[in-house]
C-alpha cells in the first residue's frame, strides 16, 4: 500500500494522512519534507492541518462540560 514516488508531488490524500499520523508518531525525514513542501503550496491541506491541531489542543484541554442547566431543562 505504501508508495513513495520520490520526486513526485504527494497528493492531498497522502498529506492528510501524514498530518494525522504526525500527531501519533515521529515522521521520517522524507515524509516530513514531502508534507512540508506540499503544505507550502496547498491551502486545502494547510486548513486541514490547522483543524487537526485545533482538535488536538481541544482534547488536551477537554473538561467535562457543565450541562447542569441543560439537564434541569430535561427534567
Amino acid at each position, binding site marked *: 500500500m505504501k508508495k513513495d514516488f520520490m520526486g513526485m508531488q504527494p*497528493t*492531498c*490524500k*497522502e498529506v*492528510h*494522512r501524514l498530518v*494525522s*499520523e504526525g*500527531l*501519533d*508518531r515521529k515522521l521520517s525525514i522524507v515524509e516530513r519534507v514531502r508534507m512540508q513542501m506540499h503544505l507550502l503550496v496547498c*491551502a*486545502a*491541506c494547510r*486548513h*486541514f492541518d*490547522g*483543524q*487537526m*491541531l*485545533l*482538535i*488536538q*489542543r*481541544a*482534547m*488536551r*484541554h*477537554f*473538561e*467535562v*462540560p*457543565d*450541562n*447542569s442547566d441543560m*439537564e434541569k431543562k430535561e427534567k
Partner: protein
Amino acid sequence: MTIAATLHQQLEAMRPALVRFAILQLRNESLAEDVVQDALIAVLEKPERFAGLSTLRTYVTGIMKYKIIDALRASNRERPIETFDDQSEEDVIDALFAADGHTVAMPRQWGDPDATLEQKDFFRVMEVCLEKLPAKTARIFIMREWLEFDTDEICKELGCSTANAWVMLYRARIRLRECLDLNWFGNCPAAESKS
C-alpha cells in the same frame, strides 16, 4: 450553607456529565460510576487542594482522568478487548478525495484556536461529537488525545497493531472534524456555499 455543603452540591451537579463521559472510555456503566465516585470522594477529602489552583471543573476532570487510567490498566488485565475493526469505516477517508488524490471540498479555516477554546459551549459540542463516534473509535481516540497514551501503549493495552491504531485515529479525527465543522464552525455564512 457551609463550604463543604456547597462543594458537595456542586460535585453532585457535575456527576451525571462525568459519568456520561467516563462511559465513552470505559464502556461499562457501573465501572464508570465507580470511577466518578472515587474521583468525587478524592475531591471531598482534600478540598483545599484545588483552591486557587484552578476551577473546580478543571480539578475534578483532572482527578477523573487519573482514575480512568487506573481503571483501564486494572480492567484490561482481567478482560482483553476485542480487536479493533469498526467495519465499513474506510469510506470516511476515501470520501474526502477525488480519484486523483485531491480533496473534493476545500476545508474551512477554523480561525483563531485560542478564541475557540475559550468558549465553554465549544466543549459541549465537542462532547456531543465524541459521543457520535463509533464506540471503538471513540475509545482509542480519547485514550490517545485526552489520556495522552502513546500509540505503543494503546496497542499494548488493547492488543491492536500500531498501523491499525494510526488509521483508527485518523478516522476519528476526520469524523470529529466533520461534526465540529457542521455544528460549531458551520454557523458562519460560508457554510451556505457547501453543496
